[in-house]
């Protein structure tokens, strides 16, 4: 969706402000949110793409107005409610008011190592890759209302395939309820001037990781 999360090229957010000696968490609750995110992901009712989409669907003023982990917490609440794991009334009450819904599994402390390495998203390919390194491609002008990983700033622009990154779970399909529908993934590089016009830095190149359905020959 063309949400406020798709920020590449937007202007007016001011300078980047690095924080000296930044702590891992700025409050204890942030760590609990991160840990709940991992533990509830392990339960197996949603994947990372669905988690991302629940954040993208937040109203723009909320998305921009709250801190990072507050977004995560709200996203987690919305998924818990959508999957009928708990009711809004129970979250409001701060205690369980009804029996639990049976779930596939629960993360035990002894199994935490399983969520501390990155998941695997590579899948066997059903067909050969359509594009090879060096191919000129155009990012399609698509504006789906559901989840996509094609950023707006690349749409309609011509770039070059730099690398084929294997065949991966296709986030757009997962969130649309169509299963993993694995697709080839490419690194596609664009010149700054192609993306931002003649005034752009001539020494700038920007690449995205583009799934095959996002691309057409140029």
């Amino acid at each position, binding site marked *: 969706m063309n949400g406020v999360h798709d920020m590449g090229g937007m202007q007016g957010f001011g300078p*980047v402000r690095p924080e000296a000696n930044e702590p891992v968490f700025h409050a204890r*609750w942030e760590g609990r949110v*991160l840990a709940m995110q991992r533990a509830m992901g392990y339960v197996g009712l949603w994947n990372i793409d669905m988690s991302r989409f629940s954040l993208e669907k937040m109203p723009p003023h909320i998305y921009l107005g709250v801190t990072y982990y507050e977004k995560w917490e709200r996203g987690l609440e919305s998924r818990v409610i959508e999957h009928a794991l708990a009711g809004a009334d129970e979250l409001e*009450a*701060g*205690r369980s008011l009804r029996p639990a819904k049976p779930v596939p599994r629960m993360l035990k402390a002894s199994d*935490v190592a399983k969520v501390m390495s990155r998941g695997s998203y590579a899948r066997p390919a059903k067909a050969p890759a359509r594009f090879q390194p060096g191919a000129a491609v155009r990012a399609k002008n698509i504006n789906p209302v559901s989840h996509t990983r094609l*950023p707006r700033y690349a749409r309609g622009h011509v770039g070059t395939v730099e690398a084929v990154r294997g065949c991966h779970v296709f986030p757009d399909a997962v969130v649309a309820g169509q299963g993993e529908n694995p697709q080839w993934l490419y690194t596609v590089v664009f010149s700054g001037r192609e993306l931002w016009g003649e005034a752009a830095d001539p*020494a700038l190149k920007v690449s995205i990781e583009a799934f095959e359905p996002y691309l057409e020959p140029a």
Partner: protein
Amino acid sequence: MSPDEHDPHGHGHDHDHDHEGSTLSEMQLRVRALETVLTEKGYIDPAALDRIVETFETKIGPHIGARIIAKAWSDPAFKERLIADATAAVNETGTLDHVGEHLIAVENTERRHNMVVCTLCSCYPWEVLGLPPVWYKSAAYRSRVVIDPRGVLRDFGIALPAETDIRVWDSTAETRYLVVPRRPPGTEGWSEERLAQLVTRDSMVGTGMAKPPAEAKP
């Protein structure tokens, strides 16, 4: 209306700094309520959450990436393998921390400076750098680095020659990018342990440079 379409608690937040304390305490309560409900339902084990938080606070951090970079600086054959396939190269050593699929290392040179961003959310090579800093997840960084990377570098106190090519990698899929910063001159013959002290988190994201040799302990 679904719970993700509006503020489920029906009131907005004032995010002036004067009110930060009250916002934090509200988040503490909200997170505690969520954790209590999920625990009572049997979906999560608080001991597992403790273990996850502890791992991020004490075990996973930029020191992991720094060891990889120091090895790459010291061992040209390893650097070649790292650039070709970072996941395989790191995991083959048996001495560096294990990393997941699709870690990609990109090398800074005199002619090219690499920077990493996730314009759509907060994708970050957390296995090797730990959790991303607040600035990496900020609207300011995500929006600007793809269109004005030199401006972002200025925010970090860095000015590159105009002729240095800048390459920005927008990690829009499950590939994860690690920048190999330039090795500081005057470090010839140094051990990997000593070199690793010069490798900062920001230098591995592309918003910083490795520290000068004088900052390392003998």
